[in-house]
Structures are given as C-alpha cells and as structure tokens.
C-alpha cells in the first residue's frame, strides 16, 4: 500500500519535472528567437546610420565645390549647413530605444534632405557645374547615398515590423514582457513629409 503511494508520487513528480523542463526549453527557444530578431533590428539600424553618416560627411565637400561657382545662393548654403549641424547634435547611438529621440532624429534628417534637394535644384541653373567633372562625381555620390539611405530604411522598416509583431503575438509576448523586449520606433512612410521643413534665414 505505502509502496504503491510512493510509486505514484514518484511518477507524478517525474511527469511534473518533464513538463517543467519542457516549458523552460520552450521559453528559452522563444527567448533566443527574440534575441536573434532584436539583433537583426540593431544591425539594420546601424546600416541606416552608416548611410546617414556618409551623407553627413559628403556635404562639406559638396558645398565647397558649389560655393565657388554659385556664390549668390547664400541662403541655400546656410540652410544646408544649419540642418547639417542640427543632425550632428543628435547622438545616433541612443536613438533606437527612445521614441522621442527617434522622432527628433527623423525630423532633423528630413530637414537636411529637403535643404539638400533645394540646393540640387538651385544648382540646375549653373551650366558650368554641369560640365565640372568634380561636381558631377559629388552629385553621383550624393544621389547614391540618398538611394542607399532609402534602401536601408526600407530594410530596417521591415525588420522592425517583424520584431514588433513578434513581441506582441501571444506566447512570445509573455517572454518579451519578462525579458524586457519593448516595441521599437519605426520610420513613418515619408520622412518630414508630414510637416513643412522649417528654414531660418
């Protein structure tokens, strides 16, 4: 009689242990998956950052080349330089986990984009520049960089969508909550298109 009870107790215990091990393994699996997706978001964000940095570094050279020929367009240069310095003040490393800073980053980059595109429109009025190989190469670099930015933003947007969906879906959201995975900010469809860029003269 006693022996039988012990046996049943042991059996139940063993089953419980197996279930607990199963649950833990399952949780670890989900957690590792979340870490993987989180890492891919961070990685694609650093690609976005790289391309914005590349544009940032390109601007002084471009402005100097254009300045020599189109010296009457002071306001356009000032707008570009001011927008650039605003971008420079943001520490891009902290942006990804802070929605307010992300918003700020996006607005500043959007302002720089529109200042730059105005500069490139103004430049159309100077045929000398169109024949200047140095300028044409800088223009190609700027276009290439803008294009890279949009490609990397697109990839980043997809990764963040995948991540945000994953951490809010049912079983994963429990693990995400316990382990502190939070929703990440994403780009809105068009940078700075929702608000007219402010330019101070």
């Amino acid at each position: 009689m006693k022996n039988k009870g012990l046996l049943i107790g042991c059996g139940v215990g063993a089953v419980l242990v197996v279930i607990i091990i199963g649950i833990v393994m399952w949780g670890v699996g989900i957690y590792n998956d979340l870490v993987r997706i989180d890492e891919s978001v961070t990685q694609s964000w650093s690609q976005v950052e790289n391309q914005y940095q590349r544009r940032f570094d390109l601007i002084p050279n471009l402005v100097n080349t254009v300045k020599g020929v189109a010296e009457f367009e002071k306001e356009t240069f000032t707008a570009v330089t001011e927008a650039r310095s605003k971008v420079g003040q943001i520490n891009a490393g902290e942006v990804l986990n802070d929605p307010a800073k992300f918003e700020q980053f996006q607005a500043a980059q959007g302002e720089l984009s529109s200042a730059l595109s105005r500069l490139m429109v103004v430049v159309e009025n100077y045929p000398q520049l169109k024949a200047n190989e140095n300028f044409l190469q800088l223009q190609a670099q700027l276009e290439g960089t803008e294009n890279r930015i949009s490609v990397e933003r697109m990839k980043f947007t997809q990764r963040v969508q995948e991540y945000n969906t994953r951490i809010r879906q049912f079983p994963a959201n429990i693990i995400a909550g316990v382990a502190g995975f939070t929703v990440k900010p994403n780009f809105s469809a068009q940078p700075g298109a929702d608000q007219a860029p402010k330019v101070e003269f």
Partner: protein
Amino acid sequence: MRFILLILSIGILSAQPEFPVLQKYANDFTGTISSSNLNSFENQLKRFDDTTSNQIVFLMNSSMDGYPIEMYTYEVASKNKIGSKENNNGVLFYVAKNDRKMRIEVGYGLEGALPDALASSIIRNDVAPYFKRDNYAAGVQAGINSIISATKGEYKREDRQSDDDESGGAFWIYLIFLLIFFIFGKGNRGGLLGAVILGNTLGGGRSSGGFSSGGFGGFTGGGGSFGGGGASGGW
C-alpha cells in the same frame, strides 16, 4: 464591398511592373543588339564569373512603365540574387531603351571597387557617347569592359569547387551510414525510423548539397544582396 476591395488590391498589385527573371548574363529584350554581339557579351561575362566569381549581368528592355529606375534595378538585382552569398559581388548593368535611362546597380561587396562616382563616370563618359549615336552594341561593350576592369581585382574564384566537394563527400558518407542502418535495423521500428531519416536526408540533400551556379551555360544567381549602390544616367 469585399469584392471591390479585392479588385482594388489586384489593381495595386498589377501596378508593380513584372521584374524579369534572368537566365543569361547578357539579356536584350528589345532585339536591338545582334545575336552575335550578345553571344560575345554572354561569353565574356560568363568567363569573368568563372575566373573571379563576380557576376555582372547586362539587361536591356524597352521601358520601366514609369517605375523609378533605382527601385527597378534594386528589385531586379535582388530578385535574381546576382553575386555570391558570401561576397555580394554582383553588378547589374541596366538599360531602359525607350526611357533613355540606364543604371549600374552595384552589390554590397563591390561598392569599394566600383564606387558611385566611378559608375557615374562609366555611364557618362564610356557608354552614353555611343548611345547618343545609336550605337548600342559599342556602348554596352564599353560599359561591360569598364565594369570588368574596375572589379577584376576584388575577388578570386577558388573556394567554391572545394567547398562543394567537401559537403558533397560528407553527404555521401552520411547516406551510406543511413543505408546500413536502414538495412540492418532491427524489426519494423528501426526500419521505419531509418526510412524516415533517409527520406529526409535525400530530400534535404538535393536542395543543399546540390549543383550551385557556374555549372553549365546560362546564368544562375548566387544569392548576392544589394544596398542601393551605383549610379544612374541618361543619354
């Protein structure tokens, strides 16, 4: 209501152009370039792939139907997976004849060897002058030559062959082991388990161990990815 939504969504889907699936290194869907020229481009590009593993693909069609060229070439190059997976060393040289636009789309791994400024210069100084005189074959040849000379020092093909052999060998040893297990497995259980694993191995082996690109004629993408590098131009 649902029906209207369905029709709308089909409309949106078909607004995207169809991106061509490329089976050759040199593709002209407009019939502009003579087949002997096209064949010589094909051989030149295939040889370049065989020796360097860089995949350069030329594509000419009539129009992008209003799609922006940067998005178009990014999609074509990515969907066809030009370049190898390890090195991302693919280049797409694209010409939209009736749009009078062209672009050199450069994979991640060749952005150093073929930067935007150089790609732009190839388009403006090497290719466009010929295109302006309606000499398309000579323009394409000039473009291909310039892209090849910019990228030829970047990678060498040597690893792929041995890599394939290695994984292929492991696969066969595994298969023989499983066969033995299958034949001498005790009773139904062992046999069934063996059969299941054997089936899986055969199925999986076919897709992973198999015949990668560079084999017999034609172009097969190697899994390269793109980040929007390159330059566009017109004539």
